[in-house]
């Protein structure tokens, strides 16, 4: 589960969808109502957030410094300060929607059938993002490397990309997929859209994890096994992020779109015929 969560959290294929589908398809017995299940998920998320913090450690130091400098000065003077404010603006809508809607939405769509359906929808979304992007490329005659860096995105676009993260409360819709897609529509090049998506995800994943930390100290939690899961999730997330940043230098979202559609259809068939 640690490897699965860590890898699928950053790939645009929905970690939540896979976390619902794979145990069901492989007949793993998880009691999601068990009090120790939430701490387990919390640790997996902390592992992923830790991997992203390590990957972007120098950038996060610059972003945090830029945030305080710009906040006290009341003015943005460089790229790090602008990126810090963009991340704040992008995080707020996702945080509001997450706090007020996440539990309700997740409880509405927790079955493997719905996860498979949303996985297909996620695949169609990825293909649609790429279709719109290709149309924009043709219209403006811009090459991939001529599209913008994350720091150049507008504040309105950052808020919209941030709000898109709320779609990921539906199991099967990928947080990184919709934010990378949103970044592409806002005019970012693929690699920059992925970088903005990962930076945007870090405070949300870390914050949601840290808030739940006290639950780890409740009785009956096998801390050693859970910590091993966290480390595996972190390693998988780090490797995934490195791979994706390299992939998006020239790669596109289409293969993930096709994968999601195929995986969703295959899952529906397997679930339907109880294989």
């Amino acid at each position: 589960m640690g490897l699965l969560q860590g890898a699928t959290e950053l790939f645009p294929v929905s970690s939540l969808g896979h976390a619902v589908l794979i145990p069901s398809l492989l007949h793993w017995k998880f009691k999601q109502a068990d009090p120790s299940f939430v701490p387990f998920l919390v640790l997996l998320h902390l592992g992923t957030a830790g991997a992203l913090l390590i990957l972007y450690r120098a950038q996060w130091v610059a972003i945090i410094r830029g945030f305080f400098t710009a906040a006290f000065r009341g003015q943005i003077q460089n790229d790090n300060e602008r990126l810090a404010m963009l991340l704040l603006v992008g995080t707020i809508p996702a945080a509001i929607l997450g706090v007020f809607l996440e539990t309700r939405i997740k409880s509405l769509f927790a079955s493997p059938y719905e996860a498979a359906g949303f996985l297909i929808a996620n695949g169609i979304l990825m293909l649609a993002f790429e279709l719109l992007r290709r149309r924009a490329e043709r219209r403006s005659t811009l090459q991939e490397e001529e599209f913008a860096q994350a720091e150049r995105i507008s504040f309105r676009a950052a808020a919209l990309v941030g709000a898109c993260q709320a779609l990921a409360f539906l199991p099967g819709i990928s947080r990184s997929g919709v934010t990378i897609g949103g970044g592409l529509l806002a005019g970012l090049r693929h690699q920059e859209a992925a970088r903005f998506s990962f930076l945007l995800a870090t405070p949300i994943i870390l914050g949601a994890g840290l808030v739940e930390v006290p639950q780890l100290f409740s009785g009956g939690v096998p801390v050693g096994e859970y910590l091993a899961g966290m480390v595996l999730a972190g390693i998988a997330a780090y490797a995934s992020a490195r791979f994706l940043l390299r992939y998006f230098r020239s790669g596109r979202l289409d293969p993930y779109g096709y994968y999601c559609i195929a995986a969703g259809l295959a899952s529906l068939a397997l679930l339907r015929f109880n294989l």
Partner: protein
Amino acid sequence: MKSNTVAVGLGVLGIIFLIVAALYALGVLQLFASTTSGPHYKHAILFVVLAVASFVGANFARPKTV
């Protein structure tokens, strides 16, 4: 948009958010919470973040004298 009125408005909004955060953290406020008792730290942290964003916005909106 540089204006003293906007800056003061955002400052007041920030103070209101801080009060709401304190009420959630103390378990006084239960609005839109999943349970009807106890403190709601997630909500409290959200309102602290909103307060910080409001204060930052207020400082940005304040007309600067160079």
